[in-house]
């Protein structure tokens, strides 16, 4: 069990391996707990109250977390929700991860492990809160039974149960064992969020200290006795294969132990250290059979997508009235084409996993956004049934969607380990491998045609999206009649998820699917990113054409969309939209809805005569329904702007000869501190629903800035990233 707590001391027990100590420097190594084979959770001496809560005799509370922590703070937020209902002392809370194998063995008692789509909290809040509440009820019942009084006469606060009438009290730790023997109650009422004292508060994260002293262990840091290290090269052209490879050339290089094929497409070098493996791999002559895809380039893909903008066949995602007729009868027609490129997730920690295979058992240790998917990948790649496999989750050095749906690196390490049975193998991708074998942000184009009447009212809109479907690339079985519903994120008819915020009398939004050979993935913010750029930048174009203020133009269309409108109004108010800005500074505004939350942003920018953009200020408003930890929401919003602005200003992976061109951060530029604008977060939780916070505001970063750039320069940014555009005065 990997533990996280505010306690700085490493967790060590007889059930854990001491890792991190090398002979040369044991004295200044940190010990840490990594899970080993066949381990049970912390319940052999201390019994769990229920699946979510363990209470130790000294009152230490262990809260079980099924979702993955990758920086987004879900570990702390979920613990807050459980602790809130448990009425325990927050200072005594620690967390642990059940393994996917343990969950399978217990009929998935911990529910879904998948941590993506900003779902960690919003989709498990109900059952984790019930887990905490049920445990509290059991602890109170145990004390009441001991006192021989009705449970209804007892209450619990900060891990202490009190019987007011008799003045008696017991600590949770004193009744935990008795409580663990009680039946878990079925009727478990939850608190009204207005009564929260732990949830809803801006508490510090539980997992910070080890991230400031080098003690935190990531997947790349794992060590096991006898472990060997692997470096891998997959055919740079997607779909290509290994034609031949001259392993003899490198067999004698220092540390090299094995050169092994990984399927038909890749070769791995295994050595004593990773640097030796990587050095030998660089020296390994490999001949590739690049196949047909070697003819594909960014230009050829763009031409194919462009054809889709006017193709007769398309799948309809949202339709109201008759948009084509409205356009035909319009006083004015405005038309623009936008585009969004491939982008790599570029997690700071490259893909990695450690595996140990024997014919009887296959175990994998890996940073993953979905432990159950990692377990399934281990089972499939090893050929062993799930019951003979286990996946141990390690906190991620960034996820952003790359480590969720597809576990290609897990399959690779298992294929390698299967060829070297009994030896733990740690596979770490180089940055170059990571850049060349991402699951990329899908590439799309969009043609928008708007109809204005003589008074400048929007009477019709046709949005034709052409391009890639993530679902077709990852879950093709979910494509029904050629339709990928996820493509219309943020553009859906009114409803609780990803709905459009405007009442447009004649609307047609359709998709012409075009799937290039480059594998797509769920990239933080997913399809909301490009769809919000397309719609919100075009709304700005329409407002300008109609001679109206972009905020007022939107408001007029949002009367039947009160939640969207409230967030837009909140951001406008905070940004003081009505007030003049300093000379040379200009604003842009936008809004969207996705991942269950309503968001809006205002950007203030200036553009110098030599075309240099400066973002002075961002104001971002979010209505996630309930705010579980406002301090962490602020951090997620700030981080979302870093991710969204990296994409808007710099993010582009280009295809040449069928492969990606950018191999590292020198050519794949991302936002650094010098470009980071001030971000003011406005949290306006309206209650009644649960929305996510890790992704939605990414989508409003680019359109707010692009609209502000238009206000500053009169130039429309219609193609991401901005780096390809000249903003100098003409």
């Amino acid at each position, binding site marked *: 069990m990997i533990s996280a707590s505010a306690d*700085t001391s490493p967790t060590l027990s007889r059930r854990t391996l001491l890792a*991190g100590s*090398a002979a*040369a*420097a044991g*004295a*200044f*190594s*940190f010990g840490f707990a990594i899970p080993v084979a066949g381990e049970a959770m912390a319940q052999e001496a201390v019994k769990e109250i229920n699946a979510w809560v363990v209470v130790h005799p000294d009152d230490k509370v262990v809260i079980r977390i099924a979702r993955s922590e*990758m*920086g*987004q*703070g879900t570990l702390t937020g979920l613990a807050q929700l459980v602790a809130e209902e448990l009425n325990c002392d927050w200072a005594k809370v620690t967390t642990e991860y059940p393994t996917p194998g343990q969950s399978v063995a217990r009929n998935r008692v911990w529910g879904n492990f998948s941590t993506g789509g900003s779902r960690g909290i919003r989709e498990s809040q109900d059952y984790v809160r019930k887990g905490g509440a049920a445990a509290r009820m059991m602890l109170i019942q145990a004390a009441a039974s001991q006192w021989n009084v009705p449970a209804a006469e007892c209450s619990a606060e900060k891990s202490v149960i009190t019987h007011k009438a008799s003045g008696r009290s017991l600590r949770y730790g004193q009744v935990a064992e008795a409580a663990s023997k009680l039946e878990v109650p079925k009727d478990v009422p939850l608190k009204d969020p207005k009564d929260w004292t732990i949830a809803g508060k801006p508490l*510090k*994260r539980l*997992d*910070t*200290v080890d*991230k*400031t*002293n*080098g*003690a*935190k262990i*990531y997947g*790349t*840091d794992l*060590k096991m006795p006898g472990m060997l290290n692997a470096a891998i090269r997959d055919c740079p052209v997607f779909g290509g294969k290994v034609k031949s490879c001259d392993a003899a050339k490198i067999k004698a290089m220092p540390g090299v132990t094995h050169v092994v094929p990984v399927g038909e497409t890749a070769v791995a070098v295994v050595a004593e*250290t990773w*640097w030796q493996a990587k*050095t030998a791999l660089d020296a390994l002559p490999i001949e590739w059979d690049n196949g047909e895809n070697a003819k594909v380039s960014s230009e050829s893909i763009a031409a194919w997508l462009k054809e889709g903008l006017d193709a007769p066949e398309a799948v309809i995602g949202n339709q109201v009235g008759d948009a084509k007729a409205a356009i035909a009868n319009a006083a004015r027609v405005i038309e623009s084409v936008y585009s969004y490129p491939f982008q790599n997730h570029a*997690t*700071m*920690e*490259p893909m990695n996993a450690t595996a140990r295979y024997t014919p009887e058992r296959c175990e994998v240790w890996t940073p993953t956004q979905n432990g159950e998917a990692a377990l399934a990948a281990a089972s499939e790649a090893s050929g062993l049934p799930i019951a003979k496999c286990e996946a141990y989750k390690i*906190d991620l*050095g*960034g*996820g*952003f969607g790359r480590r969720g749906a597809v576990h290609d690196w897990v399959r690779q390490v298992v294929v390698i380990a299967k060829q070297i049975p009994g030896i733990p193998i740690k596979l*770490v991708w180089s*940055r*170059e491998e990571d850049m060349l074998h991402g699951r990329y942000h899908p590439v799309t184009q969009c043609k928008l045609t708007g109809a204005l009447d003589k008074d400048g009212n929007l009477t019709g809109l046709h949005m034709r999206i052409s391009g890639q479907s993530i679902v077709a690339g990852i879950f093709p079985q979910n494509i029904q009649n050629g339709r990928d519903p996820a493509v219309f994120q943020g553009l859906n008819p009114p409803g609780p998820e990803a709905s459009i915020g405007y009442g447009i009398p004649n609307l047609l939004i359709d998709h012409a699917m075009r799937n290039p050979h480059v594998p797509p993935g769920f990239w933080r913010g997913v399809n909301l990113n490009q769809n919000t750029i397309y719609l919100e930048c075009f709304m700005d174009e329409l407002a300008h054409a109609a001679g109206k203020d972009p905020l007022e133009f939107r408001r007029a269309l949002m009367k039947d969309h009160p939640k969207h409108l409230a967030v837009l109004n909140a951001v406008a108010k905070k940004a003081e939209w009505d007030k003049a800005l300093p000379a040379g500074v200009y604003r842009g505004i936008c809004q969207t809805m996705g991942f269950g939350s309503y968001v809006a942003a205002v950007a203030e920018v200036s553009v110098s005569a030599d075309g240099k953009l400066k973002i002075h200020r961002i104001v971002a408003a979010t209505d996630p329904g309930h705010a579980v930890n406002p*301090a962490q929401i602020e*951090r997620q919003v*700030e*981080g*979302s702007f*870093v991710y969204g602005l*990296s994409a808007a200003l710099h993010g582009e992976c280009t295809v040449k000869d069928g492969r990606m061109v950018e191999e*590292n*951060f*020198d050519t794949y530029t*991302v*936002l*650094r*501190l*010098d470009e*980071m604008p*001030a971000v003011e977060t406005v949290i306006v939780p309206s209650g009644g629903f649960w929305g996510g916070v890790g992704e939605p505001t990414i989508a409003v970063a680019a359109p707010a800035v692009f609209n502000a750039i238009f206000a500053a320069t009169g130039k429309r940014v219609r193609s991401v990233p901005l780096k390809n555009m000249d903003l100098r005065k003409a």
Partner: protein
Amino acid sequence: MAKLNINGRMLDVAVDGDTPLLWVIREQIGLTGTKYGCGVAQCGACTVHVDGVATRSCALPVSAVSAEQKIVTIEGLSPDGSHPVQKAWIAHDVPQCGYCQSGMIMAAAALLQANPKPSEADIANEMTNICRCGTYTRVKAAILDVAASGTLGRG
């Protein structure tokens, strides 16, 4: 064979001289707080101090470091996490995933040692490490906090 002074200890390491200092620290010496991010001195996840100067260890061959030079890694920045930068990082809850933060902290500590009162522009110029989670706002606030406290700097 290399002789290295790391975190105040002299160590003999059997390793090829071309091996980057990062991998000697991680694989031969076993200190894994210093991270691999890019291998080309772009991201700064591998930042250590060499004689007090923030240095990207992923692109520095171990043969270029002499036994007289003092190397400090995140594990050696303070014995108990009490360096002012570490304390400010905890106070501001800076890290998200945390993977880049060892390098970020080492870069901040070196900056503040050399320039105890950095301006916002100094911070923007010197703190070039990449964080994909987007902790920059908090990084800046924590550095300004240490600067205001006056706990670091020459003499």
